[in-house]
């Protein structure tokens, strides 16, 4: 099995790489690449993302053919893909960070700023928050409801079809923090920074 973490200059991916290598040990081949052929020949893909929605989309678009390869992988071949943080947000049709920006359009919906209720809630939403699992998801195997995960974000994904939501978290409102649509998985929180419980999610994805 070959798993590729897509490196498209979206910022710091060291922690994602370290955590997947820790879980995979020598059993699974974890590669870091933006090379289209490597992506095509992968069995699984992890799409990380840091910074703004726009900067991530711009970075993906600046690598010629990358969006097409990802579409081929996730939409046509329906192979498992995990988006983390902005990686998940990019599944949307549109994002509103900085400027209105077109996303990958894999899951209908938009990404907008979390309502901080006139400054009552601090943004970014940083730290450990509990997840409410509302749909059985393969990546939540052996994960208890209300487990703590590490978050850091100011924008939230609002999908049109609520059936894709697998978990939410409670902040200034109910925030979507995990989605699953067929072969496409995403977490708003950072499993790579969520200690043992986060590594369990990574293991679940690897074992899919």
């Amino acid at each position, binding site marked *: 099995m070959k798993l590729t973490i897509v490196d498209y200059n979206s910022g710091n991916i060291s922690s994602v790489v370290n955590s997947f290598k820790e879980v995979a040990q020598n059993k699974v081949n974890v590669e870091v690449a933006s090379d289209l052929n490597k992506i095509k020949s992968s069995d699984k893909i992890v799409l990380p993302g840091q910074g703004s929605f726009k900067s991530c989309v711009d970075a993906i678009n600046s690598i010629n053919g990358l969006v097409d390869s990802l579409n081929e992988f996730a939409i046509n071949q329906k192979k498992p893909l995990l988006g983390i943080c902005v990686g998940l947000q990019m599944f949307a049709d549109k994002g509103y960070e900085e400027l209105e920006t077109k996303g990958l359009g894999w899951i209908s919906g938009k990404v907008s700023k979390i309502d901080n209720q006139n400054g009552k809630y601090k943004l970014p939403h940083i730290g*450990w928050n509990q997840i409410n699992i509302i749909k059985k998801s393969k990546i939540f195997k052996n994960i208890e409801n209300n487990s703590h995960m590490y978050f850091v974000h100011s924008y939230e994904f609002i999908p049109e079809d609520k059936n894709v939501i697998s978990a939410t978290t409670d902040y200034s409102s109910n925030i979507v923090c995990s989605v699953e649509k067929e072969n496409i998985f995403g977490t708003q929180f950072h499993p790579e920074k969520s200690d043992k419980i986060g590594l369990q999610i990574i293991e679940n994805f690897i074992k899919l």
Partner: protein
Amino acid sequence: MLKNRIIPCLDVKNGRVVKGINFVDLKDAGDPVEQAKIYSDSGADEICFLDITASNENRDTIYDVVKKTSKKCFVPLTVGGGVRSVEDINKLLNCGADKVSINTAAVQNAEVILESSKKFGSQCIVAAIDAKKNENKWEVFTHGGRNNSGIDALEFAKKMEDSGAGELLVTSMDRDGTQVGYDIDLMSKISSIVNIPVIASGGVGNLDHLVDGIKLGKASAVLAASIFHYGKHSVKEAKEYLDSKGIPVRI
């Protein structure tokens, strides 16, 4: 519900922990990786390394420490001390730091915060403010508390938020090392004027101080060094104590 965070801080000099946990069964008390692992296993919500290496020729030791730690610790790692430029930030992030705290360089030139938060995202940029009381206001100090910039700490906090910092690490120079508690007045004032999370630092001597930092100082997270050293309190004990006082923590 979002939990308040407890962040143990380790002083690292020339790649070695200066004041660390002195457990009997510890193989190497000076090894930052081993110390960080103990903290994360004990429930630390994040780990902070403050690099206090004085000489330039040993500056690179911190990169090696961060690299090794990030392969063993899977909670967020913040690294600060001597960070001068966007390139320094880039190097630390590439080694596996999740956040970088910037102090003197941000006072000298707020562009560093602006540029780095644009480049890497606000989530990894922490503006560290060392403040000392002078009559009715607090002034920002640089160079590890040696130089007074004369800048008003409250105004500077706002400026750091506007420049794109994702969090503020506020240290009271008056309280640092005294173990008499955080400067609550400073923490609550800064926390009320900014909309980004504030991490309180400087002066913790007992577990009640952590409670005060959150309840009275309105901090989102509390950072402490010496109470966790020499096994006086474990992070686990601290969390259980906060929990008993009605403060939401991750247990």
